[in-house]
């Protein structure tokens, strides 16, 4: 009876429907009751199963691996990521016993979130850079939007097009863009997308040069040096 009561409260808390006065009792019970921890994990998996779009879940071979590097989360969630996919693939691979909680998890959580590694990861932000690259690839106008008639003839590139936004030399052709902000980079970054290259080159004055097109790295450096002068 008591078990059912706490289990029902857990279900309600999972739905965000438990009164504040009752939350403490569930959280307290969770901290020491492994079966409750398993149940919470199962509720989460069930929700994902029922709400996920087909195709979002992919088969993962079950492994007896409680990754020791999985230092931030607890054993339940580590296993949950595996179970989530197994449930949909083949029931015979489910092993609920593997969902036993890691008793050290709570302590490790505190240590982990204050560790240097955690702080380093948390501060790692290249979101602006990613957005920039995606714009370069997906939005042709983006690469022509702030081109200010830069003369690159001394490195052999002539302009083409009404807006002079494209530079050509033999088989090489590209568009460029200059950012006043540095996008958080301090060294050259490059990507290949299809048959084109994207170069992001930090300039000495703090700006960032973006080059996108059929262009080799040697030319990219020459162009950056001209603009940097």
């Amino acid at each position: 009876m008591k078990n059912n009561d706490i289990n029902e409260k857990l279900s309600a808390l999972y739905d965000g429907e438990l009164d504040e006065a009752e939350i403490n009792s569930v959280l307290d019970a969770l901290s020491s009751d492994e079966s409750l921890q398993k149940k919470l994990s199962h509720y989460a998996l069930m929700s994902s199963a029922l709400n996920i779009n087909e195709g979002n879940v992919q088969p993962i071979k079950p492994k007896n691996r409680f990754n020791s590097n999985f230092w931030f989360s607890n054993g339940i969630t580590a296993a949950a990521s595996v179970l989530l996919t197994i449930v949909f693939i083949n029931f015979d691979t489910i092993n609920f016993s593997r969902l036993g909680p890691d008793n050290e998890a709570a302590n490790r959580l505190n240590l982990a979130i204050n560790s240097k590694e955690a702080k380093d990861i948390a501060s790692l932000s290249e979101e602006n850079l990613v957005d920039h690259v995606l714009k370069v690839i997906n939005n042709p106008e983006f690469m022509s939007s702030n081109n200010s008639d830069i003369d690159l003839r001394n490195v052999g590139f002539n302009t083409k097009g009404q807006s002079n936004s494209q530079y050509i030399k033999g088989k090489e052709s590209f568009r460029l863009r200059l950012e006043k902000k540095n996008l958080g980079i301090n060294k050259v970054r490059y990507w290949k997308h299809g048959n084109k290259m994207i170069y992001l080159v930090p300039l000495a004055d703090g700006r960032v040069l973006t080059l996108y097109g059929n262009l080799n790295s040697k030319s990219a450096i020459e162009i950056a040096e001209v603009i940097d002068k």
Partner: protein
Amino acid sequence: MKKNNPEEDSLLIHRAQKGDTGAFNFLMTKYYPRVYASLFAFTKSKEDSEDLAQQTFIKVWKKINSFRGDSAFFTWVYRIAINLAKNHVVSSNYKKDKINISSDAIEMDFASHANPETDLMHSQSLFKVRSFINSLPETLRTAFTLRESDGLSYEEIALITDTPIGTVRSRIFRAREGVLEFISQESTNEK
């Protein structure tokens, strides 16, 4: 499609913002599968998805005080996760930071990652779970489905079904227990 209620989990979020790791652990456990699944849909790599899920929750913990409740908590978490994933897609494929690159630069794949074979495998077992849910007594099935699939609050479900909230809560709990029992039995039968 389940709706995201900005109010859901507000008490737990508030506690986590005050440093309550128990509340944060609850939220993390609750949302881990959805975060993982979202990341997997993006990366198609379990290792990457696990790593990114870790990074996501570290970042969530670090930034949780900036969560204002303007959107649903999961929406906010999802945004963090996908930004990390986008970052990962770009940077992990292109770790060479030197300008003296070779001509065999790494391909960046922005195409869809659809995989019909695995989709089929997935749908076959999911069908079993959904079939079982459809076999639940109507009162349980209705309450459970309105909650899990439609994301309605207990109060909304109570209004729709003309049932006391306490009964709604009990029915949803019993339905959940039934589904878990079914999965457990299926697991045993298949062994």
